[in-house]
């Protein structure tokens, strides 16, 4: 290729990447800009700027309750899915047992289930067998765990697959019980993977609407569901302002997770990049899923 041709190809590549970036970021930019707009209804460049909608969003009772509720649910779901997801990933990575492949597919299965369907199934389950779980932090967190587990199992599994099993054996040989060997030797080496998986799990749970909407009454809801319900009744930039806050928070966490993913090594880079761009977890992990 001639130098001129090479330059043209490079220019095209840059142009293409720029277009992709615009395509991904434009909707977010529109939301962010209009949340500062003085105009109640969108369309065109704002005629002035204000922080009023942010004030409103933070004063709106369902949002304040929902924010706390969402943080609680996301915290509980993240911790539970990290603990059990790591245990499952460890069992799959280190032990040969009958049904190992089956277990692996069971953990990935929720990814292929539409979330609305998952939500409806859980609603039926709670309604018929565990009415006490309906609308509680535990009930929703459990539902979220089903969505988060595949992701945790994939990310932590990939990190474990890159570890030499001899390290843990060496620790046991030198006088540590199996549990202590895991704690002293394996855990420190998968800590970045755990951090990355934890952040993505948290964001996913925090943003989740499709499944959650089935599992709580309209008066006490998580923040995204509260936003969804408010949008149905009233369109003003209050929801837009709340969205901007969530976008900022998600991007910050995603960036942190991407840094963590990079530190765990190449295997997770794909997951980090995919999930980082989308700010939600499981779909991203389904595509870039590393085989543990």
């Amino acid at each position, binding site marked *: 290729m001639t130098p001129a041709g090479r330059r043209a190809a490079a220019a095209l590549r840059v142009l293409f990447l720029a277009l992709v970036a615009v395509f991904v970021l434009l909707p977010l930019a529109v939301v962010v800009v209009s949340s500062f707009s003085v105009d109640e209804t969108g369309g065109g460049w704002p005629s002035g700027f204000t922080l009023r909608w942010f004030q409103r969003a933070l004063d709106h009772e369902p949002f304040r309750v929902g924010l706390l509720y969402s943080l609680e649910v996301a915290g509980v779901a993240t911790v539970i899915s990290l603990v059990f997801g790591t245990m499952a990933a460890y069992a799959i990575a280190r032990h040969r047992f009958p049904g190992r492949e089956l277990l692996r597919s069971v953990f990935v299965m929720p990814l292929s289930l539409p979330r609305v369907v998952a939500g409806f199934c859980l609603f039926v389950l709670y309604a018929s067998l565990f009415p006490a779980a309906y609308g509680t932090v535990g009930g929703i967190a459990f539902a979220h765990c089903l969505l988060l587990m595949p992701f945790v199992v994939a990310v932590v599994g990939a990190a474990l697959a890159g570890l*030499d099993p*001899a390290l843990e*054996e*060496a*620790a*046991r*040989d*030198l*006088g540590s019980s199996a549990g202590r060997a895991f704690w*002293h030797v394996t855990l420190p080496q998968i800590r970045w993977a755990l951090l990355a998986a934890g952040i993505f799990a948290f964001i996913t749970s925090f943003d989740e609407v499709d499944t959650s909407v089935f599992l709580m009454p309209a008066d006490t809801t998580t923040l995204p569901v509260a936003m969804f319900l408010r949008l149905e009744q009233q369109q003003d930039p209050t929801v837009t302002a709340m969205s901007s806050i969530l976008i900022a928070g998600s991007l910050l966490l995603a960036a942190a997770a991407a840094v963590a993913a990079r530190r765990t090594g190449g295997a997770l880079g794909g997951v980090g990049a995919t999930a980082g761009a989308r700010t939600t977890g499981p779909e991203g992990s389904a595509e870039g899923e590393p085989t543990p």
Partner: protein
Amino acid sequence: MSDRAIAVRSLSKSFGRKDVLNDIELTVRAGEFFSLLGPSGCGKSTALRIIAGLERPDRGRVLLGGADVTGTPPHRRPTNLVFQQGALFPHMTVFDNVAYGLRARRTGRAEITRRVAEILDVVGMSEFAGRAPSTLSGGQRQRIAIARALVGRPDVLLLDEPLSALDLGLQLRMRRELRRLQRQTGTTFVCVTHNQSEAMEVSDRIAVMNDGRVEQIGTAEELYRAPVSRFVAGFIGENNLFDTAPDPGSPGRSRADGLTFPVPGGGSPLVAVRPEFIRVVEPSDEGAIGGAVVRSVGFLGARIRIVLETSTGREVLADTDAHSSTVTVGAAVGVAVDPAHLTVVPADGRAVRSEGAAG
């Protein structure tokens, strides 16, 4: 500690349908350097891991210093293992790696500092205490792995192919180093290797393993001079093996590949002759046991390697002193064997030397 550091009794292990160990019996004496030698897949590493407690046997028992430890987990056994690639903890410094076992056993801080410094000095790595394992060379890592395993003063040090990841020159130096460490610490060493020259150089005794079984246990010299099986005769050093048949013309002689061997009692034994005991002579020489053609002559430094071909097309290796050989490629020669150096390998049981175990 009893005189027997390790006793392994009728040990068997299979992975799935594959029998990895088949009724293994081993006795290792306290203070000796013992090697498990065999080709890859012979079960030697599995045997070592069972002694360490990292694998459980299907049948059989492991005794350490007289105590049955078959069901004891690895962290309660008086053994430490040096892994093939070292298995140093990458997130810890050299000091913390070596101190790991002492900390796990709740040793006092001052004692830890003293003993880590002491063992790093023994392996010549004192200046590296603060380094990360990733900054060390292969040989340095292996020294640290040995120090980490020795610092807790185990009754038995187990080594799983400790030198196989190193380049040849370093291997040769580390062999002497291992032997020195073993003498200096008086620890019983059990070393797994597939490298027969390594096993022969460092070990007091060697167990030759093949296909999940122990073929023979003995000193390097015993294995070399009196192999008890076809496998050992072929695996330890180089050998010319002949499957003979009785010579109908002359009793007390057996034939194979156009050569006639003096075998007391005749029959169809497996006859082994080392290359250094095969002499190339004039075709008409009285001592010749048959004729051959010289196929190639190679200069190996201390000796010359002559490859002969008998009338049946069989290759025979003959080594000779570098300063006295004048054979040329393509020449027809006679093959001579000193009967004292002709070994009859039994189908099983003990090796019989043809001249009533002379020499």
